[in-house]
């Protein structure tokens, strides 16, 4: 369902060249749960950005359900990000001036759904992650774990078929990490989505089906 063929990414800034990914190829099936691990600077975040259509590779192709992702236009790629992908980042997840509910309904509004419909779905999703009563709170009044649950709700509210999480529990304590991870796996069961999680937490990786090890921009088996 997802196939990466010889993906390379070279960052260039001020004469310095950095080859973050050096020809990466692998396949993912629909509904698979994958952990991406590797030392800092291995290219994990870079890989996730490419898979999520946030950036384009320097070379290589990626097929998503038969579609050649990087031959898509700016507009088509943004539609892919909006409808197909759900992102969860470690930091800078929420718009601090908006309520949790507004944050969660944002992807739906961007996708062109009506305000009423979006808010209804967003409320439902917040209830699902156990934050129904905090829907109208601003993010900075929520705890770190709660904020990350709001981010999960926002990533999943549009029922994406691919969820990409870059160290989603990176700044949470063990108990909260467990809770967030449980939630992610439960929802994965419900929605039948492919889940790709970058994490340093080895105990969490054991709960996923497959592990992709990255080292210096290459697969390390």
């Amino acid at each position, binding site marked *: 369902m997802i196939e990466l063929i010889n993906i390379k990414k070279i960052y260039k800034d001020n004469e310095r060249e950095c080859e973050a990914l050096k020809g990466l190829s692998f396949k993912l099936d629909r509904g698979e749960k994958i952990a991406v691990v590797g030392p800092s600077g291995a290219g994990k*975040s870079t890989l996730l950005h490419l898979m999520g259509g*946030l*950036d384009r590779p320097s070379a290589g192709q990626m097929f998503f359900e038969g579609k050649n992702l990087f031959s898509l236009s700016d507009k088509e*790629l943004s*539609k892919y990000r*909006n409808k197909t992908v759900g992102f969860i980042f470690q930091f*800078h997840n929420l718009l601090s001036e908006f309520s949790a509910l507004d944050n969660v309904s*944002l992807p739906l509004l961007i*996708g062109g759904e009506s305000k009423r419909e979006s808010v209804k779905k967003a409320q439902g999703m917040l209830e699902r992650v156990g934050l129904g009563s905090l829907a109208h709170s601003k993010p900075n009044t929520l705890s770190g774990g709660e904020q990350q649950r709001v981010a999960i709700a*926002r990533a999943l509210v549009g029922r994406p078929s691919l969820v990409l999480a870059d160290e989603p529990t990176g700044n949470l304590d063990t108990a909260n990490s467990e809770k967030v991870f449980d939630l992610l796996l439960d929802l994965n069961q419900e929605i039948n989505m492919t889940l790709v999680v970058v994490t340093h937490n080895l105990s969490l990786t054991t709960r996923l089906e497959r592990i992709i090890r990255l080292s210096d921009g290459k697969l390390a088996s």
Partner: protein
Amino acid sequence: MNFLMNLEKILGIRKKGVRSIAFAVAFFAVILSMGLAFICLFVISGFQKEYQKSILAFNAHIVLFSEQGRGEEKKVREAIEHINLQTQNAMITDVSPFAVSEAVILDSSGLKACILKAIDPQKLKNVYALELNILDGREDLSHSLLLGSELAYQISKNEIKMIIPQGASLTDLKRSIQTIPLAGIFKSGIYEFDSRFALTSFEMLKKLTGVFKITGYEIALQDPLGAPRVAKLLEENLPGMRAISWDELNSSLFKAMQMEKSVFFIVVTLIFFVAAFNLLGATAMSVYLCRYEISLLYSLGVSKLKLQRSFGLTGFLFGITSCLMGWLIAFLMLKLEDYYGWIKLDPKIYFISTLPMDFGPKLFGVGLIFGSLICFLFALGVAKNLIQEKYIINYIK
């Protein structure tokens, strides 16, 4: 569009602090430069209009110069009829012969050269659009003359002593001094004309000079702008005669004005661009302050183009508002000047004595479109340069 407005709301959140100051500075700069631009445009085009009007008040639309000096009137009238038939909507409305002669006015203060121009007094109102001030009971020009207002101001007498040097030998110069009653004064608004011309009738000219030649024919048109075309037709139909349109007759003045206009345009455009560069800075700052929002929205599926356009739209709205305000400032300042008349012009240099202005809708439209377009392009250009994947991904790691 609906979402674009929502986007505005989301990106507009960070309006506080530095960003609002940067925009306020840019806003003032653009308003002031637009105000300046509009003042220049209004005044220059006012000059142009005023000169055009004044020139047309004294000059006929076309002057057709006579070849032989007499006996051509029938030929001319036939040619005009022919042209009027040819051009369907009777372009030529009137024709009147004229003759000019040099003359010297004797006055207690000395001698003054002037140009004596003989016309058909009946045509005074049809061919010329002069401001007239005629003394009671002296409407008949056949024994008197009309002086230009500036000339009359220098002489201020009811009778004029005049010599026509033409044909008179030195010995009988004294004998040829003639006393002519003044019928009144005329005013065209142009110092050149008002200070040098005296108008009279053919009978009077004949009495003063004995024999005279017709210098040419003055022709009035329905539409003054058609003059060059009709002048060409006249020359084609009257071989040997030269027809000069009013704009050609005053071409050096109009060329100088056009030149002045171009120079002003360049200077004002430069000033405007300097002002608009503030907008570049303000937009860049605003993109920077909104970097997290931009990258988050991007990751949630807003296209790059939409994000860039939202800044372009901001620039456009910025441009329209500041241009409108600039126009308003220019308008108010000129209206105040018009009312109080602080600026006095020396008519000997400028031909007119008050600052002319023309608030044509065309100038307003051109300024507004130009200004807001530049602001739009500037903001869009900055956004296009700064909203790129390679910058966006740095903020969402």
